[in-house]
């Protein structure tokens, strides 16, 4: 049907979350129709992002500056640290605008079956960060799944000897709820109603 280049484009687009082959074909045709106003700027943006965006060495967020803008922001509260599994959760909390402390992105969740253990999540570094800094409170905002709650339980345990209070989000959401799927009001309510672990 289409040439090899178009086919390759469609196949790459189809690998994006939420897109199937039909949506990918539609997207490819749309891009070709809007070559000047959309396709070229998008290609440019992708290329820039691929080279200039890095994971922050302090918190794990994505940014073009190191440390990231959130870590550099002096107006934020150094005494609270929110631990999330991934950058999508960090963004969800930022969108909700109810949290003004610092972050720590784990980059995954404990999963023995997937071969991800405490060392892979850098839990030792996290413990050092909490030991070293001015952190008074740690909020565990991992998902309400088994892996999310096991990870939260494990980290809370590792922090239990330190002089910080550890709390978890009040998940009034069904099992499996991830922050990225929640609306801002729900996220802020879950933050406000956080409970000691």
């Amino acid at each position, binding site marked *: 049907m289409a040439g090899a280049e178009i086919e390759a484009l469609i196949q790459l687009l189809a690998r994006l979350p939420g897109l199937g082959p039909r949506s990918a074909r539609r997207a490819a045709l749309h891009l070709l129709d809007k070559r000047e106003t959309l396709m070229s700027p998008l290609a440019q943006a992708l290329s820039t992002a691929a080279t200039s965006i890095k994971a922050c060495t302090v918190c794990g967020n994505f940014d073009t500056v190191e440390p990231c803008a959130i870590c550099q922001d002096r107006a934020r509260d150094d005494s609270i640290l929110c631990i999330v599994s991934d950058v999508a959760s960090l963004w969800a909390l930022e969108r909700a605008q109810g949290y003004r402390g610092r972050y720590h992105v784990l980059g995954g969740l404990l999963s*023995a079956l997937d071969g991800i*253990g405490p060392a892979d999540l850098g839990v030792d570094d996290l413990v050092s960060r909490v030991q070293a800094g001015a952190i008074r409170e740690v909020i565990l905002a991992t998902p309400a799944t088994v892996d999310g709650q*096991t990870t939260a*339980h494990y980290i809370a345990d590792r922090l239990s000897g330190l002089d910080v209070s550890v709390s978890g989000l009040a998940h009034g959401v069904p099992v499996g709820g991830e922050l990225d799927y929640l609306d801002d009001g729900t996220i802020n309510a879950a933050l406000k109603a956080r409970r000691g672990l």
Partner: protein
Amino acid sequence: MSRVLAQPEGLPGRRLSIRRLTLTDFRCYRHLRLETDSRPVVLTGANGAGKTNLLEALSFLAPGRGLRRATLAQVARRDSAGIWAVAAVLDGPSGRVEIGTGIEPGSTRRALRLDGEPVKAGDVAGLVAALWLTPAMDRVFMEGASGRRRFLDRLILAIDHGHAAHAGAYDHAMRERNRVLKEQGADPGWLTALEAAMAKHGVAMAAARRRGVAQLDRMCAARQGVFPAARLALMGDVEHWLDEMDEAEAEARLTKALVQSRSRDAGAGATTIGPHRTDLDVRHAAKNLNASDCSTGEQKAVLISMVLSQARVLLTEKGLAPLMLLDEVVAHLDQTRRLALFDELVELDAQSWMTGADQSLFDGFEGRAQFFQVADATILNPVADATNIHKETGNLTHEH
């Protein structure tokens, strides 16, 4: 999409009924579309024609892994690159909905759609209740506890959707724990976290089983007619603990038991205590015999009795008559029981889907059911009146 249907919009009622079923690259079916009215459905045809695959497709509309417990890859048609879809237009108490599931391109996780929109399993869990009996379950009383446990959990999750979530979470945490235990110098903090999850979900599971068995036992014990009354009892540590303590105490006790069994479990390569070891004891009430001591025919009758009783529990508790998927069930029944089964299904007001080698097995069901003949993964013809079949080629039905 419901607007394209010729039939009038479904009236809210207690019956769940499939009005249109569409399969794409599911098992032997490349593309199939079957339109049905709300009456029971009889599928006849030779072995291997694809009758059971149709029931399995329907079972995927309910929560869980379907009636063969197949993996998502196993149900994909060969040469389909693992992509498949099952979609149905369904009339239920809340009106007419279109529900679809399958593997979408670029994903290995099962997607669910409700009226075309992506949804999560929890959003549709209450929508489709299905109960089933298959020939694979014939020896359930003779074989190990795992089959009976699965049969019971399946019956319960048709009415208690939380049960599936807790069972899944428990199972996941247990498999994680078994894996951690296998490693040298297993991190005790990690084990503690996993055991906490197992205790929480395991006790919730046991509590759901106790509620479910109490309801089903009452219904089963009260049965009259040709399918025998049966008495059910749970045999499991955690379920027994709940006789004498509340859930919080049982959680603490299970946590402690898991900690104590770590070295034994590491050696065994499995978790040796917990509700994943529970068994269900079933007794034929009139004969006062354990079901496993009854004749093969009587065991089958007890199974049917349990499934029909659970349908009645659903009807009483939820006002919902579930889909009944009865694979090769009538072939082994005598004429009296066959007719009694047809009568009871009609009385339940359930849309049952039944399979059998030939139509004569369903003598006495004419006029009250719709008949289709299945051969070589196609529906040859509606054998009875008022049904239309469209065979179409085309794209995945779950992508709009």
